């Protein structure tokens, strides 16, 4: 069994529990042990970097110091947590003077954490081949567009992403598992992220464009690897469809859920039942295909 570090972030312990459960399920199927970073803290998200740069730096520094102590790499499912950790690491590489003594006391090996976004970790050639060999069902009939969002790719200087404008990992994985993946130009467009409470209108405008394009291209679902994207696309779908004056019924899957489906994890339906747009009819049509 292979052991890697795991930084879940706050959302995956509550509103995105379905993502967390499917990650655990997939790790089990692939014989990977996810060792949670001991006593990790919130990454600070948009709020910290917007209002308090010193807090953002210190929250990141503490996570990195703790992550460096465990197994490597440290995989991060949330694109924003990933971006915050990488940005902090970049800043700390040249200047650690802003770190408070209480956190500096953790050892200060900020560069020792090898931070990798989960969707890149799980779409390496090796893992795709392994997933394909372990698959018990084909995802044929599923016509997804893959939606990566923003924070996992940009800016490439920080994220190290080789193709920030056209990531292909999830596309390749799902194609290997039999899905009829549809290419589209909105892979890395923004969903509005943290605006969903204070400026819902911005999120609705951006998400409507994504639905429109996905439907025009004949997609029957959208697949993502970020729980903020998933929430913005899944939670308000009927409201946004009403504003668009167009029927929208697009289940929003996590790519890990579809891995569970193809590899036959017994709890897949339990994860899917937590969504707002019911993905079960489409998921079941796939299974029997």
């Amino acid at each position, binding site marked *: 069994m292979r052991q890697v570090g795991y930084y879940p972030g*706050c959302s995956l*312990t*509550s*509103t*995105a*529990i*379905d993502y967390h459960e499917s990650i655990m399920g997939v790790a089990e199927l692939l014989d990977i042990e996810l060792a949670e970073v001991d*006593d*990790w*803290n*919130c990454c*600070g*998200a*948009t*709020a*910290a*970097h*917007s*209002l*308090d*740069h*010193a*807090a953002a730096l*210190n*929250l990141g520094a*503490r996570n990195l110091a703790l992550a460096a102590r465990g197994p490597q790499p440290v995989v991060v499912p949330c694109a924003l947590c990933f*971006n915050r950790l990488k940005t902090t690491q970049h800043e700390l590489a040249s200047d650690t003077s802003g770190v*408070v*003594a*209480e*956190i500096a006391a953790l050892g200060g090996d900020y560069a020792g954490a090898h931070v990798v976004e989960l969707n890149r970790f799980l779409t390496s050639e090796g893992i795709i081949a392994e997933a394909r060999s372990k698959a018990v069902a084909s995802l044929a009939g599923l016509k997804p567009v893959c939606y990566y969002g*923003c*924070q996992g*790719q*940009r*800016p*490439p*200087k920080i994220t190290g992403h080789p193709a*920030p*404008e056209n990531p292909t990992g999830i596309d390749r994985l799902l194609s290997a598992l039999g899905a009829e993946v549809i290419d589209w130009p909105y892979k890395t*467009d*923004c969903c*509005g*992220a*943290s*605006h969903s*409470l*204070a*400026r819902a*209108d*911005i999120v609705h*405008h*951006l998400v409507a464009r994504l639905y429109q394009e996905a439907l025009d291209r004949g997609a029957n679902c959208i697949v993502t690897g970020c729980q903020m994207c998933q929430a913005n696309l899944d*939670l308000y779908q009927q409201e946004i469809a009403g504003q668009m004056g167009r029927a929208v019924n697009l289940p929003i899957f996590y790519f890990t859920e579809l891995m569970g489906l193809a590899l036959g994890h017994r709890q897949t339906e339990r994860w899917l*039942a*937590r*969504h*707002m747009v019911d993905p079960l009819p489409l998921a079941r049509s796939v299974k029997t295909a």
Partner: protein
Amino acid sequence: MSQQVSAAPESKPAPPPERPATAADAEPLRPDGAFMRQVERDTGISIGACYGCKKCSNGCPVTFAMDLHPYQVVRLAQFGLVESLRASSTIWVCASCQTCLTRCPNEVDLPRLMDYLKQTVAQGQVPAAEEKTLVFHRAFLGEVAKRGRVFEGGMMARYLLKTGGAFGPEAMANAKLGLAMFKRGRLKLLPHRTRDRRWLKAVFKAKEAGS
């Protein structure tokens, strides 16, 4: 000999159309580089490197909701027009999606400049153009400062109380959504926190917990 096309003396370019006088005509703009230098010193953002190509703005997904386009933010910063920047909704509407920084030929870190400007507003006396966004960020940070992690229930309560919407239509829509999520096992009733919390005081020393 072939005929050479030459500009006839009588076809002089037309004079620019009349434009109504604005306040700017009465008071000519005097660019002041002090702010630009201060930002560059504080953050390392190379504002002066911008040559106005607008690539940042062409790729920005939220210009439809902005009062200043991203390149205008850089331009005003070059000129030192800080008050216009502090009063703008753009700095709050920016979704930090990093598209502009990724595409800028001069690596002008616009998202970080937006953060810098938000911070000067949050710490100063000028009201934020997007007050609810500021309240949301404060509610979020209040949770982090208290527990080291974010408890969504606590954050929502803080946000709704401060935006005066605890019983308004927005709160009702959120409550309906909250219930639907609760039924699906996606809302926890009890907060979770980091085991060690001694470091929180040092990190958030300047913040009143709960603000």
